[in-house]
């Protein structure tokens, strides 16, 4: 291996590492706030990327029907609750968000020539379809069992993951796809060529990470999420309901997932089940941080990305094995050093 190849691999590693870092942050966040180990995180990557593919192909993305179905279900549940609690005033808002929003989206996708829109608009449409599935998923699946033990939540996560992969196959078919890159620019940096898309991925990830940091440090809702993660009872006493925190967290997780998918779709061929592997690598990174530390998780993500890139050069058949084996020494080290993630109370 010469220097140039090392640089190329390093570039690959950093690009992938940036995406793993985003996913790792989402996983840590979801776990801290809701105690859910969010296995389906990766599905949002696939759904985001492939929804964009369908939009660019001029088709109505099948995911929008899932959104509508989930919205109807959630509306039915919440309308019943609102009526029982004697708050008919909330009905309008509920139905508006759960039902009218997906319908408006469907109408727009049918009537507008979205296929010919600039890519940024198409991406926004893809996000508009996929991201609301996050809070809906929390409302329908996790909120009713929010008090369950971590293990139960994990088992449910596995079930949700399997269901989403199955639906993904139904929606997108077994074929993989790519999207055109955001830009065709190439930059020479010393001896290597850096593609515009690589820069897009790294810069967008950094921007997103900084934005998230600002959100948690500066805004009231960001602080409310941190408060919920630190002390659930204390947060409830401030009027921060776990349901609100959960929906907001899942919104962010879905946004991060879908955006990651959109970012890597031009570099990697995405299949309906690609997201799972990507999410799993984010998970390895999150484990490096003990599912609790954001900086360690980000560092872990970079490590995973680089390890993957270099092992694909030396032992490409075993690259996944090498990456996932990383989890064993990390877990050993973590459990020997004490303080692991405990079942709460």
């Amino acid at each position, binding site marked *: 291996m010469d220097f140039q190849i090392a640089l190329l691999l390093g570039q690959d590693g950093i690009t992938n590492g940036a995406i793993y870092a985003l996913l790792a942050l989402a996983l840590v966040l979801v776990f801290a706030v809701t105690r859910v180990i969010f296995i389906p995180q990766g599905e949002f990557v696939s759904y985001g990327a492939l929804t964009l593919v369908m939009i660019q192909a001029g088709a109505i993305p099948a995911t929008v029907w899932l959104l509508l179905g989930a919205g109807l279900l959630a509306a039915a549940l919440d309308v019943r609750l609102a009526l029982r609690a004697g708050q008919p005033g909330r009905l309008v808002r509920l139905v508006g968000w759960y039902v009218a929003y997906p319908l408006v989206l469907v109408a727009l996708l049918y009537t507008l020539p979205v296929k010919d829109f600039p890519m940024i608009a198409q991406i926004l449409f893809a996000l508009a379809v996929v991201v609301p599935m996050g809070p809906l998923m929390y409302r329908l699946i996790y909120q009713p069992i929010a008090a369950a033990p971590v293990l139960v939540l994990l088992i449910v996560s596995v079930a949700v993951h399997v269901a989403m992969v199955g639906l993904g196959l139904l929606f997108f078919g077994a074929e993989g796809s790519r999207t055109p890159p955001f830009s065709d620019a190439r930059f020479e940096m010393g001896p290597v060529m850096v593609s515009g898309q690589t820069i897009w991925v790294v810069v967008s990830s950094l921007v997103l990470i900084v934005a998230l940091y600002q959100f948690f440090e500066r805004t009231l809702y960001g602080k409310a999420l941190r408060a919920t993660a630190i002390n659930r*009872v*204390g947060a409830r006493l401030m009027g921060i309901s776990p349901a609100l925190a959960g929906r907001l967290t899942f919104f962010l997780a879905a946004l991060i997932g879908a955006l990651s998918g959109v970012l890597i779709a031009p570099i990697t061929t995405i299949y309906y089940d690609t997201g799972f592997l990507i999410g799993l690598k984010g998970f390895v990174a999150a484990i490096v941080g003990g599912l609790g530390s954001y900086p360690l998780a980000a560092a872990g993500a970079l490590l995973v990305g680089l390890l993957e890139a270099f092992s694909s050069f030396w032992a490409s058949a075993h690259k996944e094995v090498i990456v996932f084996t990383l989890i064993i020494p990390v877990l050993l080290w973590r459990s020997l050093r004490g303080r692991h993630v405990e079942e709460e109370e």
Partner: protein
Amino acid sequence: MNANIHGSNLILKTVLEVRDLTVSYGKVEALSNANIKVGEGQIVTVIGPNGAGKTTMLSAIMGLLESRGKVDFDGTIEGVPVVERMVARGMNLVPEKRELFGEMTVEDNLVLGAFQRHRSGHRDHAQTMEEVYQLFPRLRERRSQLAGTLSGGERQMLAVGRALMAKPKLLMLDEPSLGLAPLIVREIFRIIGELRRRGVSILLVEQNARAALQVADYAYVLETGEIAMEGPARQLADDPRVIEAYLGLGGKHQEMLST
């Protein structure tokens, strides 16, 4: 406000009325058919020995625990109180364990105290915070310190200050003097009196019966999950049974602490 209003339970407007509140932990009934009333602008105290069910009662009123009975707060009856809804309607609890956000700064803890107010469109938390800092100048000095590193007394102040950020109609305090030095206890009770002057109704649970009876208008004695006695605070303070069980001899020393 004359003594007649504070000294009697026959008042015009009731902020909180709890009827037949019963809480069980499994098969054990920790609170049985408690009836309690708090009038507007009143301080009502609940005293009783350890394990009597005082904390249980406050938690149930707030909605942190499941209960049977009725909680009529501010004119609306809640069968089963839900914490967030009670907060939104103006009830706040400073719990026995304080439940501060340890890894966040004092100021962030305070800001979060106004979360519900902010959500319902009242964006005046800067001004409320100024008022809280005036009550507790120590908190201003410590504004950027992490809550988890505060001293016991400072934590207490932060817990009360955080609850005040919500501008509650009814403030429920669970042993605000717990583990505090005599001087700070006095300060806390001075502030409780000050809050009433500002129109906050207070339901106060205390071990420090002497100080509580002195500041309160009306009092309940809770023993093994049941209301054993009730009456105007002055009257209870003179009741031989209360003196024997809760005020005790050597009252001189406590008297000094509480004034």
